[in-house]
C-alpha cells in the first residue's frame, strides 16, 4: 500500500445533504479513528504520562501523592532495594535478575522446543494431532496453568506427579520445587515454557512450510544431507520468524505476572519475585504508589527497544509491500 491516492467522491447526490465540512475526506478519516484515538489517548497515553509523574512522588494509602521526592524512588530501586536488585551477592539477585533469567531461559527453551517439535511433527502423519496437543495450553489462562503446575509440583509424592517420579523412579527425597530458592524460578519457567512452546511451534512450522519444496529438493539432488539442509537452508530462512517470536516472548517475560502471583506470590522469601509482581506488591500491598510507579517505568524502559523493533519492522514491511 506504498502510496494509494484514494480519489475522493465528487458531486455525489448523497453528498448534497451534508454540510460542506464533511465533504473534505480528511474529516471522515479523523471521525473514523476518533473513538480509538480518544480511548487510547485517555486510557493509555494519559495514564502513562501520569505514571511517570507518579514515579517522582510518595503516596498515602489512597494512592494520592503526598510529596515529591525527585529521583529518590529510582535511587532506592537500584541501590538499596535488595528485592529488586541485590548486588551484594554474586551473581547478583533480585526481581530484575529473575526477569533476566526468564528472558534467557524461557525464550530459549520455548523457541528450541517449538522448533524441534515443528521439525519432528512435519515428518509424521499425525502432525496435526501432535501440534494440537502442544498448542492447547496457549488457550489456558495463566491462572489455570499455575494451578495445573502447582499440582504437578506438590511436595507430597502422593499428590504431585513430579515428586512421584522423583521419589519413585530416581529414588530421591521429595523436592519442594516451589519452596526452594534454588529451584523455584526454574520450576515456574518450565511451566511457562510448557504453555508457550505451542506459539513458537505454530509460527516456526508455518515458516518451515513456506520454504519452497524445490529449493530443498535441489539441495537433496546436490547430495546435501538432512542436517545440512536444515543448517544451510531452513535455519537461515527461519531467522526472521525466530526473531519475531523472540521479541514476542521477551515482551511476555517483562509483563509476566499472573503465573507467579498464583503459584508463589514471589516466594519463598522473595526468590521468585519479578518486576511485575514487585510493582503490584509495592503499589497495592505496601501502598507505595510512587515507588510502584518507578518500577512500572523501568518495565516500560525495558520494553522500549522491543517497541522500536516492532515499529521499524512495520516500516520496512511497508516498503516491501
Amino acid at each position, binding site marked *: *500500500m506504498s502510496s494509494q491516492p*484514494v480519489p475522493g*467522491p465528487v458531486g455525489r*447526490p448523497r453528498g448534497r445533504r451534508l454540510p460542506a465540512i464533511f465533504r473534505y*475526506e480528511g474529516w*471522515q*478519516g*479523523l471521525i473514523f*479513528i476518533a*473513538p*480509538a484515538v480518544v*480511548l487510547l489517548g*485517555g*486510557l*493509555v497515553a494519559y*495514564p*502513562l504520562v501520569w*505514571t511517570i509523574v507518579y514515579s517522582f512522588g510518595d503516596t498515602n494509602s489512597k*494512592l494520592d501523592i503526598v510529596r515529591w521526592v525527585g529521583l529518590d524512588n529510582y535511587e532506592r530501586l537500584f541501590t538499596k532495594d535488595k528485592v529488586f536488585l541485590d548486588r551484594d551477592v554474586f551473581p547478583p539477585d533480585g526481581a530484575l535478575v529473575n526477569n533476566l533469567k526468564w528472558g534467557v531461559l524461557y525464550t530459549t527453551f520455548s523457541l528450541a522446543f517449538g522448533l524441534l*517439535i515443528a521439525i519432528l*511433527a512435519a*515428518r*509424521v502423519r499425525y*502432525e496435526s494431532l501432535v501440534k494440537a496437543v502442544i498448542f*492447547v495450553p496457549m*488457550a*489456558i*489462562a495463566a*491462572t*489455570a496453568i499455575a*494451578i*495445573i*503446575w*502447582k499440582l*504437578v509440583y*506438590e511436595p507430597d509424592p502422593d*499428590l504431585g*506427579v513430579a515428586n*512421584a517420579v522423583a521419589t519413585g523412579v530416581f529414588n530421591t527425597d521429595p523436592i519442594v520445587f516451589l519452596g526452594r530458592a534454588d529451584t523455584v524460578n526454574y520450576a515456574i519457567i518450565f511451566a511457562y515454557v*510448557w504453555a508457550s512452546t505451542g*506459539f513458537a511451534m505454530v509460527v516456526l512450522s*508455518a*515458516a518451515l512450510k513456506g520454504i519452497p519444496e524445490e529449493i530443498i529438493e535441489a539441495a537433496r539432488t546436490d547430495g546435501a544431507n538432512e542436517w545440512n539442509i536444515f543448517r544451510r537452508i531452513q535455519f537461515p530462512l527461519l531467522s526472521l520468524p525466530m526473531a*519475531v517470536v523472540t521479541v*514476542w516472548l521477551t515482551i511476555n517475560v517483562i*509483563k509476566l505476572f499472573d503465573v507467579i*502471583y*498464583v503459584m508463589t506470590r514471589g516466594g519463598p522469601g522473595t526468590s521468585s519475585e519479578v518486576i*511485575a509482581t514487585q510493582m*503490584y506488591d509495592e*503499589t497495592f500491598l505496601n501502598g507505595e504508589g510512587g515507588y510502584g*510507579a518507578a518500577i*512500572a517505568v523501568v518495565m*516500560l524502559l525495558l520494553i522500549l527497544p522491543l*517497541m522500536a523493533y*516492532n*515499529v521499524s519492522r*512495520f*516500516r520496512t*514491511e511497508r516498503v516491501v509491500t
Partner: protein
Amino acid sequence: MSVAAETLARPRATPAERLSRFVARTPVHIALLAIAVVWLVPTAGLAITSIRPRDEIQATGWWTSFNDFAFTLHNYDLVLDNAQMGSSFVNSIIITVPSTLLPLTIGAMAAYAFSWIRFPFRDTIFLLIVALMVVPIQMALVPLLRLFRDLGLNDWYLGIWLAHTAFGLPLAVFLLRNFFITLPRDLIEAARVDGASNLRIFARVVLPLSVPALASYGIFQFLWVWNDLLMALVFISDSDLFPMTKRITEMQGTYGAEYHLLASGAFLLMIVPLIVFFALQRYFVQGLLAGSVK
C-alpha cells in the same frame, strides 16, 4: 493438509518400503510420543483430580485412580455453588463480551480509515498506535484507577470494559489494517463511484470480506480478557462481580491446597477458552501468524 499432499505426490510405496521408512522414523515417533506425554500429563492430572473425592485426593495420587475408579461430580457442585464459581462464570462472560466487541468495532473503524481514507498525519498516528501495542498495563493501573474514581466507574464493569478496550485497541488496529489493505482496491473504488459513503463501504464491503481477520482478533481478545487476572484484581472490587480468575486465587487463599476445589475451579475456567479454541482454531492460528510473522 500437507500430510495429504505429501502422500499424493509420492509414488505408492510397497509395504516393505513403508515398513523400512517407519522403522527409520522410530526415533521420531518415540520423541514425539515423549513430548506429547509431557504436554498432556499436567492437564490430565488436573482433569482427573477434579472428579476425585476429596479424601481420595488427599490419600493417593491421581494416577492411581484407575485402580479404584471412584469418581464424582460433587466437587463441581461445591465449587459452582458454595465457592461461587457459578456466578463468577457469568461475571466472566459479562466482562469478556463487551471487552471483545468494543475494541473490535472501534478498532475496525480506525483500521478502515488507516487503510482506505486519506487524512493528515495518517501514517504518524498509525505508527503511534502500533507503538502503544506493547505498553504494559502496569503503566496505567493507578492513574486509571483514579480516573475511574473521578468518573465514578469503579463500582461496576464499566471501568474494566474501557480498560480492556483501550489496551486491546492497538492490536486490533494493527491486525485489521494489515488485512484491510490486502482487499482489492477496485472493489472499494467501484463502491465509491457508485456513491457509497465511507461508512457504507466499511459496513457493506469491507466488514463482510474481513470475517476471518475479525474472527482472529475477536478470539485473541476474548481469550486475553477471559484469562486476565491483573485487571480484575485492580478494577473489580465488589466480590459479587469477581470473574473466575480472581475467584480462584481467592479460593486458593482461603482453602490452601484443597485440590478438589482448585482443580474443578481451574477446569471450569479453562473450558470456555478450550471450546472457543477448538471450534475456531483455524482463525486463531491465522491471527497468530498475521500478528507475528507478517
